[in-house]
């Protein structure tokens, strides 16, 4: 997927092996990993400095369940969009803390790649190319923003 402006992605995950594998997946769909943070402080600092287009955020980080605050900060202060990647989907706030959605753990490699491809289109064109792929759940606010509510639902 050669792209003039590949999506810059920040990984916010305290498990290094998961982060390493996510890095590969990001590269495989033509996006660029701009950094890896393991605590909320690190994540916020990196997001402010690097201003990634997208941040993959685990809810539970080295310093506790601070991923939600990280997502809020990225949405409000850093001009980016967060995507939660967590085993704890049910504990997310109703407004998703400004994040565009969630991928539940354990995720499949294929699921993550399809989600990245889909979100790249959404972010670049401001409109969803269709229903989200399996494994990706969009936040209601973003689904609406990307025109999903206008789309005819598949049977």
């Amino acid at each position, binding site marked *: 997927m050669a792209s003039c402006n590949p999506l810059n992605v920040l990984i916010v995950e305290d498990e290094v092996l*998961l982060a390493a594998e996510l890095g590969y997946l990001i590269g495989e769909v033509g996006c660029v990993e701009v950094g890896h943070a393991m605590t909320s402080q690190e994540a916020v600092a990196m997001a402010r400095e690097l201003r990634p287009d997208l941040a993959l955020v685990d809810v539970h980080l080295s310093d506790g369940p601070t991923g939600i605050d990280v997502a809020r900060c990225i949405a409000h202060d850093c001009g980016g969009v967060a995507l939660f990647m967590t085993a704890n989907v049910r504990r997310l706030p109703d407004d998703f803390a400004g994040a565009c959605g969630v991928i539940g753990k354990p995720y499949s*490699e294929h699921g993550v790649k399809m989600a990245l491809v889909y979100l790249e289109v959404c972010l670049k064109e401001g409109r969803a190319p269709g229903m989200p792929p*399996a494994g990706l759940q969009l936040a209601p606010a973003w689904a609406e923003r990307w025109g999903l509510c206008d789309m005819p639902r598949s049977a």
Partner: protein
Amino acid sequence: MQDNISSGRETDLLVNGQGSRAPPTLDLARALEQKLALLHEVDHRVKNNLQLITSLLKLQARRSSDPAVKLALDGAQVRVSAVATVHRRLFRGEEVEQFDVAAFVEDLVDDVIGGSGRRDIQVRMQLEPVDLPAAHAAPLALLISELLVNAVRHAFPDGRPGVLSISVGRQTDGLFVEIADNGVGMGTPAAAPGFGETIVTLLSGQLGAQRETTDAKPGVRTVIRLPVNGRPRVLGDGVL
């Protein structure tokens, strides 16, 4: 002081007719909440750990230069992912003792076929919701994963395009899973069963399932019939 003691005894009598002190309802509710929180905590740990294992296998596969080793590790990773698929859905709803087979078959097919990168394989699914006791979910997921991987590898070798049809439904005393392809057909059976075939045989035995493989002319059809002690999927009080 005397008044407090006497009114205290009155309360005890009200709470438990026998006159002994029963545990206040608030403590019970709190204890239940704590236990539920612990259960959720364990669930998150398991989900995270399965993610860790899958990522580790994938990373190791990437590092190995030997194609045979890569293939073996990828194969192992697909199997772990099948089990992970089951856990992904665990605790998502309120139900943890029964699993909807249709739902996780859909996930499995998406992961195995999607993950294979074979865009030339078209998938058709006809899935009827049917519940299975949770203890059988992981073995069944592994079984179906093997059959799907087999179909991709043997029915459609060398980039031969085709259609894979998957159905799940209820039968009188249980459920059936059918996987049919319009690929190259059965060919000559191998002299000794490979590891995948061994897994399928062992797991079928464990689940008490019957496996029937027939010539679909063209292609192959495999049906797994599973007796299920669980109930058919119900909505509210009615039976679907």
